[in-house]
Each structure stands twice: as C-alpha cells, then as structure tokens.
C-alpha cells in the first residue's frame, strides 16, 4: 500500500471509530435521560442508526483495502499462483462493477430525496438524503479500492496481494 492509500484508510478508520463511539454514547445517553431525567430524547435512536449505517458502509471500504471481506477460498487456494492471479482480477472486476452500479443507483436515490426534500417519519423530520448518501458513498469508496486492486494485480503483481491472511501467517508460508 502506498503512503497515499494508508492515509486514506487512516482517515476512514478515524471517521468510523468516531461514528461508532458517538453512537454508543448516544444510546447510553438515551437510557440515562429516560431513567434519571424522565425525559427520553426521541431522536437518539434515529441518529444512532444513521451513524452506524454510515460507519458500516465506510467500513466496507476499509475491509476491501485490507482484504477483510470474508470469502470461501479453500478451493481457490489449491490453484497455481498464475490461475489465482487471473481469478483475483476477475473477482476484483466483478466487485468493482457491482459497487459502481450500486453507487450510481444510490446517487439517483439521494438526488431524488434531496430534490423532493424527503423527511424521516419521526418527530425529528431528518432529511433522509443524508443517511441515503451512505450507501452511494460507501459503494463508491469500495469501487475505488477494487479499481486500484485490479490495476495493481494486472501491472505490478505481488503474490502476497492474493494470499489469504491465514496463509501468510502460517509456518512455512503457502502449502
């Protein structure tokens, strides 16, 4: 990974960490206010959901960068490195195409919600394009990650890029 990509991941991790922590504290605050001040904020749950959904879709990008998305690799691991490289390019391209398509469709929904000024059903009347944007943003980020991965697999191939984590950590490497 280049310095540039490392920085990208670090920013994402910071945002995700902040969102997850805030959501936790917000839920906690909701419980405390309900029992101590007898005045539960009706917006706490809703905002907490938005935060976690945003965190989930940004996390998808971190996972794509770190090969953290779980896959069934036992069959693939038995192939030669050359075949595995082709497969990795294919898989990367499929994931890229899927995410790009979902991102494009997602932005359409965001645009529609923004133009029509759609609001959530709760008392908060939160503009829904903000949470909707999470799907499109997350999928764009994941698509970018896979674009980089495919480019790298094609032009500057390193075997470690397609090895699974458990293969790398294993005594004696690949077997």
């Amino acid at each position, binding site marked *: 990974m280049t310095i540039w990509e490392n920085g990208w991941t670090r920013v994402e991790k910071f945002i995700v960490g*902040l969102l*997850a922590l805030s959501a936790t504290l917000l839920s906690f605050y909701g419980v405390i206010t309900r029992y101590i001040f007898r005045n539960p904020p009706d917006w706490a749950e809703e905002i907490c959901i938005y935060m976690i959904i945003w965190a*989930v879709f940004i*996390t998808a990008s971190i996972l794509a960068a770190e090969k953290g998305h*779980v896959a*069934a690799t036992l069959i693939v691991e038995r192939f030669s490195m050359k075949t595995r490289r082709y497969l990795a390019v*294919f898989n990367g391209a499929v994931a890229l195409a*899927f995410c790009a398509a*979902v991102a494009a469709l997602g932005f359409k929904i965001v645009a529609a919600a923004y133009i029509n000024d759609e609001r959530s059903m709760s008392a908060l009347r939160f503009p829904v394009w903000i949470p909707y944007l999470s799907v499109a943003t997350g999928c764009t980020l994941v698509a970018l990650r896979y674009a980089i991965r495919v480019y790298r697999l094609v032009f500057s191939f390193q075997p470690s890029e397609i090895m699974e984590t458990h293969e790398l950590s294993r005594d004696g490497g690949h077997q």
Partner: protein
Amino acid sequence: MTVLFLFFVFLGLLCLGLPIAFVLGVTAFIMIAFFSPAPLQMVPEVMYNALDTFPLMAIPFFVMAAQFMVQGGTSRYLINAANCWVRHWWGGLAMVTVVSCMIFGALCGSSVATALAIGVIVVPAMLEHGYPRPFALGVISAAGTIAIMIPPSIAMIIYGIMADESIPRLFMAGFLPGIMQGIFYMLWIRFDAKRKNIGGAPKATWGETLQTTYKAIPAFCMPVIILGGIYSGFVTVTEAAALGAVAAIFISLFIYKEVAFTKVIPLSAEAMKSAGMIMFIICTAITIGNWLTEAGLPAQLVQIAKDLKLSAFAFLLAVNVALLILGCLLEVVSIMLITLPIILPVLKALDINLIHFGIVMTLNMEIALITPPVGLNLYVISGVGKAPLAETIQGVTPYIFITIIQLMLITYWPAYTLFLPNLIMGAR
C-alpha cells in the same frame, strides 16, 4: 428454472473466491435485472432499509464491548480466574479454555470474537505446556462457538429480527443448552486428555484463587449489567449492548487502566470492522431473501411439506441436514438470511415453536462455524496457532460430532430449550 440458474451463478462465484457479500449482491442484482419486474433502484434501497432497524444496532455495540474487554485485559483476568478454578483437572488448560469461553460468551455475542479473545492467550499457553497442537486448536475453535448459544448472541438477534420473535426469550432459551454444551465438551476433554495423558497443573491455593477471582470481578459484572438490564425490563437488547460497551470502555480506561485515552477511537474502529463485515453481508443477503419470497418459493415449500404429509420432526431433520451442508459452504449470517425467509412459513404451517427453532438454528450455526471448508473459527484459530488449516480441522472433528449429538437433543426434545423461558417469562 430461474432459481436453479441463479443457484449456479451463486455457487460459481462463491467457489471462485469472490467475497460472500459480493456473491450475494451480484446474484441479487442479476435476479432483479433479468427476472423481476422491480426496478434496479431497489438494490441500494433494500441495502439501506436492511440496516435501518434499531435492534440490529446491538451487533456493533456487542462487538465494541468485546473489543474493549480484550484490549482492556478483561479476558486475561477472566482466564486467570478460570485457571485457578479448574487447571488441576485432566486436560487442565483445555478445561480453562472451555470455562473461559462460556463466561466470555455471556458478555459477548460473537463466536469468532470469543475464540479470538480467549485463543490468543490460551493457545500459546497450551503449546508451551506441551499440549498437542491439533488438540489445543480444536478445543478453542469448538469452545468459541458456545458464545452464540449463551446469551447475548448476535445469531439470535438476527434470527429474532427475521422471525419477529422476542430476542430476550430467545436468549433465555439458549441458556441451558449453552451450559450443557460446555459440560459435554468438558466431559470429552476429560476422556480425551486422560487417554493422551495430558494431566492438569498443580491445584491453586485458596489465596491465589481468591485473589484472581477478586481481580476478575469487574469482568463478571458485565453479564450482570447486560442480562440484568434486559430481564429486569430496564433496557432493550440494543440499549443493554450499548451499556455493556460503555461499561467495557469505563473498565478498561479507569479500573484495569490498560487502554489509553488515545486508543479509544482506533479500538472502536477496529470493533466496527468486525461488525461492519457482518452488517455488509446482511444488507446484500436480505435482497436475495426478499426476492425468493416474491418468487413464491416459500409457498411452494409449504405445499410440498403438506403434500408429503411431513411431520414437524421429519421437516426439522431435513432442515438440519440442509443447514449442515450449507454450513460447510457458507458463512453464518448469510445462511440465516437466505434460508429463514424460505423456512419460516413452513415452520408456521407445521406449528413448530419459533423459539425452539431459533435454538435449533443457532446450534446449526455453531456447527457451521467449525465445519470446513468455510468455518470462520477454523481460519481465525489457524491464524492464532500459526498452523495449517488441516491441523485445526483434525482437532475440531470430535467436537463436531459432539455438537451434532447436542443438535439431535435440542431438535427432538423441545422442553430442553423451552423449559427455562416458559418458567421465567411465562408460558405462551
């Protein structure tokens, strides 16, 4: 015909090693693009709506609680205490592993997180004391799965949401089977360790036991906060999870003082990574479940079950076999999300108790976590032990059989699971 075609697309992509979340997403996309009148814009909408529910938020909170407990030293204090209690038994450290996993399971709802949290400490210890590597790796892979049977449980949260059942009731139903499973594992360890002549360590003194137990008290408070909160009706499951996470952060910052303030955000991000992986799968898997329902598959299955005059038990047997096979091929969350929309209508038609089936499902998911080729615990623990997958598989095999016996007990003896919730929360 369509279903069959899509099944092959699905299986093909899966075998080629495409991450499961994308296998599900791409299959759903093809389905909607070519075989459904619904507009493609449905895909991002369904992905968003899948996550837009407060009960699901319990998953990141439980994972966060677990993350802070591991980094904050809580799991180590727990293991130290368990070590003093049972280390002198046959297969001492293996017993410690099972007991630690059972306790950790009561404050963490994830099997992989539990296996990892306890594994990183007990695996090196077992290897150092001359335990055979497959034996050590097998014990922790299997014992980790108990975490989703003993409440809280992420698998039961997902089931509860899908089946529209009470999550606290499901948690309660898992309690007895979870403890019994730990006991079954320990009985096997005793037998196996005696045969392999793996003795225990010298018995701990009373002073040592008291001291380590005292140090682990904050750790023991966690299940009390989480489960106490839920069953007193004080908080919902998600709020209990958030309380647990806040308590875990507090304990690791101020009581054990093993986490620095600057680490709080990075650790939250790390926890979100594990939770995000599950939740990203949820949002792609749910699209498939929706479409299968639309395609009328569940109704067809109900009709088949009625035509064959299947009894409830015969149907459960068939489901168990199917889940066992799926469990070898797929990851846990995706199995639940794909199969439940198809199975649930049949369960209702055959008058099978949904709480009872929730536990059957959970146990099947436990087995799925340790059956190759796709068993997450196997991969995680092979990584921890720096061992080939084959060794872990070898070690875990006896436990798979023990768990299958437990599965038969649970499936054919509903009172085993329903006794406790009916006793405490009233019969329904």
